[in-house]
Each structure stands twice: as structure tokens, then as C-alpha cells.
């Protein structure tokens, strides 16, 4: 009789408990979602601020810690360079700064030959001068003190310089025999060299947030 009185008057006790559980579950889900959303947003928003730490120093060899910028494009943050590695990065930069400009010079020597001058003499003179520069860069790079932790990075860099030397040698053959296909072969080498240098740079000289 009591049971039938409850059922006749409204929702049963069992149903109340069930409804309460469902509501509690929904509240819990919303709470977890909100918590994850706010923590993700604060992580992402902190990334540009963390990158601006680089503005304060010319060398941004020190990485921001993973705690301050974990959301940076989803990539894992490498460890900060040690003092010894920073010195190495600074030394190699003196080689790299010039090598980069010579690499561009190599590209434009080929580009101008192909689109404007078709002058083998000019191509040869330009590329010959760059060849000498790359050889000097390789010697200078080999003379740098390399911390053991950076040996693999250094080998990668040296291999890139050698690729540029090979590219220059290939371009000189174009100047000798007029075979333009050699320029294409050389460009493949210089592209590969640029990719390897980018990877080295990613370790030693990280860039800064600047959309263009």
C-alpha cells in the first residue's frame, strides 16, 4: 500500500537515485571538459609570451622550458643548451652566417645564368669564388671545439657544407660544357644542404615568432 501511494504521488525513489546519478555524471563531464579547455588555452596563450624571451638576448640558444610553452605547435621542447654548447653554437654561427649568404649566392648565380646572362664566364667566375669560400668555411668549422654532445650535429653541418662544395663543382661543369642539367643536379644538392642546415639550426639557433 505504501509503495503504491509513492508511485501514485510522483517519481519512485529508485528513479530519483538514477536521475541524480545521471545529473552528477553530466556535471562531472562538463567540469572535466572546462578544466581541460582552460588549461589548454592558458598553455597556448603562454607560447608567444614565452617566445618573446628571445627578444632579450641576441642568441636564443636557450630553449623555453616545456612547462611554459608546452602547446607550441604540439612539438616537444628540446633541452636547453649547456654553457659549453652555447659557446659552440656561437662559434659555429660565425661560419654559418657567411655560409648562408654564399648558398644564396650560388642559387642566384645559377638563376641569373639561366634567365638573363647565359654567360658561362660570369657563371664560372662567380661559382669559383664561392667554391673557395665554402672550402674555407669547412676548414674553419673543422677547427671549432665541439662538445661531445654536439658531435652528431657538427657532422651534419660539415656534411651540408660539403654538399654545397659539390653543388658548386657541378655548376662549374655547366660553365665548361654548357649542360644545364648539371644546374638542376646542383640545386638538388644545395636544397638537401639547406634542409640539413635547417635541422642544425633548429638545435642551435631557434627562430623567433614572426609571421610574414
Amino acid at each position, binding site marked *: 500500500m505504501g509503495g503504491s501511494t509513492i508511485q501514485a504521488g510522483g517519481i519512485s525513489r529508485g528513479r530519483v537515485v538514477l536521475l541524480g546519478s545521471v545529473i552528477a555524471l553530466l556535471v562531472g563531464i562538463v567540469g572535466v571538459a572546462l578544466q581541460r579547455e582552460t588549461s589548454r588555452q592558458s598553455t*597556448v596563450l603562454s607560447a608567444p609570451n614565452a617566445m618573446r624571451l628571445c627578444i632579450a638576448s641576441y642568441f*636564443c640558444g636557450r630553449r623555453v622550458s616545456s612547462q611554459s610553452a608546452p602547446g607550441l605547435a604540439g*612539438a616537444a621542447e628540446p633541452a636547453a643548451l649547456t654553457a659549453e654548447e652555447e659557446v659552440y653554437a656561437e662559434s659555429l654561427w660565425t661560419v654559418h652566417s657567411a655560409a648562408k649568404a654564399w648558398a644564396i649566392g650560388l642559387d642566384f648565380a645559377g*638563376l641569373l645564368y639561366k634567365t638573363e646572362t647565359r654567360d658561362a664566364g660570369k657563371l664560372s667566375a662567380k661559382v669559383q669564388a664561392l667554391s673557395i669560400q665554402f672550402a674555407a668555411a669547412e676548414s674553419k668549422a673543422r677547427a671549432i671545439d665541439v662538445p661531445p654532445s654536439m658531435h652528431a650535429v657538427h657532422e651534419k653541418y660539415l656534411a651540408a657544407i660539403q654538399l654545397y662544395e659539390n653543388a658548386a663543382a657541378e655548376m662549374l661543369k655547366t660553365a665548361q660544357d654548357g649542360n644545364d642539367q648539371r644546374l*638542376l643536379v646542383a640545386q638538388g644538392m644545395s636544397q638537401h644542404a639547406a634542409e640539413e642546415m635547417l635541422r642544425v639550426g633548429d638545435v642551435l639557433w631557434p627562430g623567433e615568432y*614572426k609571421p*610574414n
Partner: protein
Amino acid sequence: MRNLVGSLYRTGAFALVASGVFAGWGGTAAHADTVCSAWLMESSRFMHVPFGSFMPDRDFIPGSADPKHNIQSVDLPVNIGVIKCDNELILFDSGWKQQEYHKMTGTEHFTPLPDQLNALGFKPEDVTKVVIGHGHWDHAGQLSDLPNATLYVQKEELKAIEWALNYPNPHIRAVNTDPGGCNRTPACGYTPLTVEEIYGKVLKGKAVIVDGEMEVYPGVKIHPAFRAHTAGSQLLEVPTPIGKLVFGSDAYSSYEGIRDWMVANIQQTDSVQQFLAYEQCYKITGGYEHCISAHEPLSYTDKYPVTANSWVAMNGGRMAELALAPGEKSRHP
């Protein structure tokens, strides 16, 4: 007999001339009425860019109620134009390529260009022409993924790249991947691998070095916009059923900027030239609504009406159908 042969000769000559005239007329008529379809694809998105660094006249002022100064940061798409005119498939800009570059700039929602084209029902080898608005790293990447496309780049742009990257002063020749980056200085944005992309196209005989104005297909015209963003910036005028569109790359970084006459995304920019480039769009299209921006934050929303027919594609990147030529099927999924 002689009269018969003579008559035959005269008749044959007349037929040849007449067929030539009619073919020419027929061809001219078809080209004069070129109407293209156009889509926009988001190559990637720069996240949380301070509005003031994108548009100085929209800088954030804490506590301001002025809608021009109360937005702290914006997300900027990197837009690529896809244009189909008869059997020609033309891209305007080509996004960027290296994952390392994305990592440096906090970019998200990147999808490789070949995959984006596939999603629209095209193949990268279908692309016949690619016009780059300028040679920056987020606009001239992925050229090597378009094997049959001829690249169109201004001679002025190549001259400026060579000048900047070879300049003796290390601050002027600094690029984004250098220690400390670069601050809108002349070589900013011309990273080595992007230069390689352009150079590769030239060496493969798949590049046209443009000197000023050029019609790349009947009715589809390049207009120089030198120093409107970079030294050799260029625009692309495209006839469509909804009227002419003008793709502007970063000379038209902001649709609101064109509407409100404000500079945007100043890099190697002469602001006077950027305003003149805006005026060019008004003249060509009759207003600002059909000026296609490279980085407008309102892209793919109804607040930028020409891009409102939009959808979310791969990796959260967006696409929009701008105009459909007669007989062209919609590619909106």
C-alpha cells in the same frame, strides 16, 4: 580546263581564308568571355597574433570599448587561391612547406597542399600555373609539389631577394631562422628553402619571370603591386560569374584593412604603395568586397562575405567556394 583549275584554286583559297577568319573570331569570342571558378584554402593558421602587430591601427588598448582597439589577438589564416578557367588550374600562392618553419611560428592546422587539392577533387599534377603574390616563406613553399605548374614571379621580387640576402649588414640580411629572428627587416621571410623552391622551378624551365603586367590566361591578369608588401608583390585579377576578384596575397593581408583604409602586415612595405594597391582593387572590382586577402582573420565567416560559403576540411583547416563558372560543379562537401 585552265578555267576549272583556276576556279578550284580560288575556291580553296577563299575557304582557307574564311575558315581562318571564323576560327579566329570563334576563338576570340570564347576568350573574351572567360569566366572562372574560384576557391580559397587555408594552408595553415598563425595563432594568437597580437592584433597591433598585424594592423598597427587596431592595436589593443586595455579597457577600451572601441571595437577597433578591444581585440587583443587574432588567428591569421594563410590563404591559397584555387582558380579554374576552362582547362587551366591556377593557384595563387602556395602556402609553406617545412615543418620546422611551422614549429618556429606556432602555426597550427597545416595540411599539405597536395592533400588539400585532393579534397577539392583536383590533383597537384593538374595545376598548370602558380602565381605567387610574393616570395615569403608562407606563400612560396610547396612549389616542388606542383610538377606541371609554371611559376609566375616578378623580376623585381627576385632582385630584392638577392639584394637583401646578400647585403653586408647582418641585421638587414637576417632571416627568420637566424638567432633572434628578424624584425620586418629586408630579408625577413626569404628563408633558404623557400628560395630553393623558386630556384628549382626556374631550373626546370617551369618559371616565367614577369616584368610588370601580364595576362596569364585570357581575362586573368597579373598586376604589379611593387612595395605594397614586398618589392615585387603582385596581384591577380580573375573574372568570375560574381564579378571580378582580385587576389592580393599580403598586399591585401586584411579585408578590413582594405575596407577601412588601414595598413596591414607591414613587412618590406611602402604604406603609400599598399594604399594604391587597395585602390587598384576598388577600380577593378568596383568596391572592396571582392578583394581576396591572404591573412584576414574573418576569413571563412559571413563577416567576410565572399568567403562565407565555407567548411572545415582536414586538420581543422578551412576552405571556401567563392564562385562557380557555368557548368562547374560545387566542391563544397
